């Protein structure tokens, strides 16, 4: 009996359920899609050399999914609450007929289960199909081979989605039961009669507030674009953010009054059709929705900015990468192995073999050749030794500046010896990389560093003219600041400091720390290079078997692996951004839609009056459409304006070189995503409201 009633109720209020259902389905679909990423074909195709990063991404998405689930949980409870409120009277009637609270709770419980079950199935269905499309996006981002297409279904993700949503539905049920138990019959029956007090704002105050709001926003915009050079710490960035929030709230607080005043003074527009009515509706409602409008606007702003800047992130990272990987191969190994070392974990003393010790006294190329590597596969080989002098530590380099530095960065290991290279050795590498070459007089040294916070620190030491004394000879810094340069390739500027010394610097043999080799592959095409890469990285070749057996450790970077790793990194950011962005979008659209629907119940009376004084359905629907459209457009427009500046800020914060043309595709993609989801909610709201105002008294 109760089940029948539940099903009938659902059928009856199917249009009320539309927004709720839409939110659930989208939530389930998105949740499934992002949690099924690991089993997507494109992921499998590409991931071999970047398995770790993919793993990292899956883990991060997992953590974020919990956060997403909480957001969705709140959203679902909110949406559900709207439905319950709509049906207060119905419950009141059940209660007058003698139904107990428990039975009503049971009805709602059944309904929640029914809707939940249905939305889970539909959502998973949508999710499974949408994730096939996402494969294409993944493939594009990873440049993976997608010639062999297979349909993918992730059981793991499916189970995870079901479990998470089951928990959310449980929360909804508990919430509903609590709500019902607090209801009083009289309130249920008279629920529809509550009227909102109308507050009218002084239009002049509105105008003044709006001007102030525009000034605040303008100043914040200026700060994040023209004045960006001053925004180098988090605290300084807080200023524009707070200004942006305050400005947004003030705009919504004053805008409707301002628009009303403006249009009222243009009688021709104001006294035309239902304009007057729509404007008054806006003015009336926006007063009570300032906070939610502001929140929605800011959420949309974050969504737009994050989506469009993250989608273009991939391009800009690749560009950086080209600059950071001028050679195909970097290899290095430890020089001068001692007799033994102590195992960090077990405390055992481990002795090196003679072969290991012998190898460590020779450069990298020796290890390659001696163990049977075909040196013809490489070209442009440059080999240099890297030194470390125990008494020349960071602390020594910083000199008088050490105390200041220590106060600022207490955690750094200042007793670490500096990495030291002879100037001519460095110039050989620089020549290969196409970087700037330097020269030093006999009593000079210089520092290369491109890691931002270290540059600041080291410049302090160099500026104070720290004199270094080694072997009784004194050296002074040639430049007052660090120069840019590096020897090891990486995904970004991470060189924390290399000291260059003159060629006649007398090194003791035991100061030799590492042997370093940089080279290019002797291949013309990408394919050839990848084959050579395999001979270095793979475990199957003769030399790699040899050094493995001997326990010789050679580490290194290759251009190909760096690029792949970075691609993984940027893709992680892009995916997480899209994931969060879409959820934010769903949340803000759903809140806006539900707010409008709630108000439509109040508006029903007004539209009935319009009908009575002679407005036909077409005019009524037009007025309703415009009213809802304005409510949906206002936060979006302000969010778009915010985003224009936000995206610029985001790009310059990422030090991106992306031009507006490169941004275009990602902006188009953002428009499609936002237009799609936002539009869907708009449509659902309009149809739902139309249905509500059409209802018989």
């Amino acid at each position: 009996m109760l089940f029948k009633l539940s099903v009938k109720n659902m059928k009856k209020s199917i249009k009320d359920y539309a927004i709720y259902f839409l939110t659930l389905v989208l939530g389930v679909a998105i949740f499934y899609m992002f949690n099924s990423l690991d089993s997507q074909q494109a992921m499998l195709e590409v991931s071999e050399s970047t398995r770790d990063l993919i793993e990292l991404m899956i883990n991060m998405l997992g953590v974020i999914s919990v956060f997403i689930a909480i957001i969705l949980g709140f959203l679902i409870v909110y949406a559900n609450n709207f439905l319950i409120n709509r049906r207060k009277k119905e419950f009141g009637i059940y209660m007058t007929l003698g139904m107990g609270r428990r039975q009503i709770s049971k009805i709602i419980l059944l309904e929640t289960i029914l809707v939940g079950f249905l939305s889970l199935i539909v959502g998973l269905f949508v999710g499974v199909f949408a994730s096939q499309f996402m494969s294409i996006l993944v493939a594009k981002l990873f440049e993976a081979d997608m010639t062999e297409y297979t349909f993918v279904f992730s059981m793991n993700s499916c189970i995870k989605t079901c479990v998470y949503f089951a928990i959310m539905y449980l929360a909804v049920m508990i919430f509903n039961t609590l709500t019902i138990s607090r209801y009083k019959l009289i309130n249920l029956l008279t629920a529809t009669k509550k009227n909102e007090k109308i507050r009218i704002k002084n239009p002049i105050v509105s105008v003044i507030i709006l001007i102030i709001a525009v000034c605040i926003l303008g100043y914040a915009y200026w700060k994040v674009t023209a004045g960006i050079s001053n925004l180098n710490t988090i605290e300084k960035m807080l200023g524009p953010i707070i200004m942006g929030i305050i400005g947004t709230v003030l705009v919504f607080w004053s805008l409707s009054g301002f628009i009303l005043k403006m249009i009222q003074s243009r009688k021709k527009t104001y006294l035309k059709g239902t304009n007057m009515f729509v404007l008054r509706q806006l003015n009336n409602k926006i007063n009570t929705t300032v906070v939610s409008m502001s929140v929605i606007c800011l959420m949309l702003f974050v969504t737009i900015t994050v989506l469009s800047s993250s989608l273009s992130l991939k391009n800009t990272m690749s560009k950086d990468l080209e600059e950071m990987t001028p050679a195909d191969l970097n290899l290095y190994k430890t020089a001068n192995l001692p007799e033994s070392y102590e195992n960090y974990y077990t405390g055992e003393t481990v002795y090196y073999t003679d072969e290991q010790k012998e190898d460590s006294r020779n450069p990298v190329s020796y290890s390659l050749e001696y163990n049977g590597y075909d040196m013809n596969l490489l070209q442009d080989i440059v080999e240099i030794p890297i030194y470390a002098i125990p008494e020349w530590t960071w602390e020594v380099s910083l000199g008088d500046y050490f105390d200041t530095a220590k106060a600022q960065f207490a955690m750094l290991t200042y007793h670490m010896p500096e990495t030291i290279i002879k100037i001519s050795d460095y110039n050989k590498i620089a020549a290969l990389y196409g970087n700037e070459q330097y020269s030093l007089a006999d009593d000079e040294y210089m520092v290369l560093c491109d890691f931002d916070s270290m540059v600041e620190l080291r410049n302090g030491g160099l500026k104070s003219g720290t004199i270094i004394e080694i072997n009784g000879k004194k050296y002074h810094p040639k430049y007052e600041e660090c120069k840019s340069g590096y020897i090891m390739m990486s995904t970004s500027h991470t060189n924390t400091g290399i000291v260059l010394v003159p060629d006649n610097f007398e090194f003791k043999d035991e100061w030799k720390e590492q042997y370093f080799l940089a080279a290019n592959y002797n291949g013309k095409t990408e394919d050839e290079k990848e084959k050579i890469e395999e001979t270095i990285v793979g475990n199957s070749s003769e030399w790699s078997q040899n050094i493995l057996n001997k326990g010789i450790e050679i580490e290194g970077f290759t251009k190909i692996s760096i690029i792949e790793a970075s691609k993984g990194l940027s893709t992680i950011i892009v995916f997480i951004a899209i994931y969060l962005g879409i959820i934010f979008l769903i949340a803000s659209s759903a809140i806006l839609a539900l707010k409008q629907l709630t108000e439509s119940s109040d508006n029903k009376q007004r539209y009935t009056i319009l009908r009575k004084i002679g407005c036909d359905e077409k005019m009524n629907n037009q007025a309703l459409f415009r009213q809802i459209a304005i409510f949906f457009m206002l936060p979006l427009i302000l969010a778009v304006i915010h985003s224009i500046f936000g995206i610029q800020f985001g790009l310059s914060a990422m030090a991106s070189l992306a031009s507006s043309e490169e941004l275009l595709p990602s902006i188009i993609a953002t428009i499609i995503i936002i237009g799609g989801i936002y539009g869907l909610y708009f449509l659902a709201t309009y149809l739902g409201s139309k249905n509500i105002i059409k209802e018989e008294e």
Partner: protein
Amino acid sequence: MMGYVLEVKNVDKYYGNKSNLTKAISGISFNVEYGEFVGIMGASGSGKTTLLNCISTIDRVTAGEILIDHQDVTKLKGNSLNKFRREKLGFIFQDFNLLDTLTAYENIALALTIQKVNANEIDKRVQEVAEKLEITDILQKYPYQISGGQKQRVASCRAIITNPKIVLADEPTGALDSKSARQLLEAFESLNQKLGATILMVTHDAFTASYADRIIFIKDGKIFNELIKGNDTRKQFFEKIIEVQTLLGGDLNDVI
């Protein structure tokens, strides 16, 4: 003026289906002349509101014709029906039906804006009508700031500003105290006499009805009696109404 502004000819209105038929109105016919102030009286359930709904095109008749300004409204459909209602009819409701978000001025002007009247003319006409009903000083106020009587006068302004052929008033004093009701009815009188507005008013209150020129009594969906004020004073007319009402209410057949 030629002929009648409203001709109701043999109107039937049935509810329900064949097996369970309710005759709300059966075979009602009457006419209203231009510039007449007609009251329709009857107990609740007598069919007077159904009749008004049929005349106001909100409801459809089952049989018969209703001619307003020589046009058969029962034949109108869709947009032409809406247009007709907008342009030829004025409505006054028991619960005012003013939009709470709009000022009195805007409530009145809305009736004209939806007819796409020129903005300058709207202003002129609103001022004119407001003056006649003595509400000029409350035009900028919102409905929640004014009294019930004032609200109903604003609603009356809205009803007549479009120069309708006939104003249909459904229990206009129903929600008013006696003083406000008297003021409103005096306003109706002056609308009727000075502006020549034709008013058809449905009420069950004898005092309210006594302001009309002629009263049609309805009982069980049929015309039961008709009273014409003629040269009577309002007091005399009121007493006659009470007499008929007594007859209406206490039919001997009912008290067995």
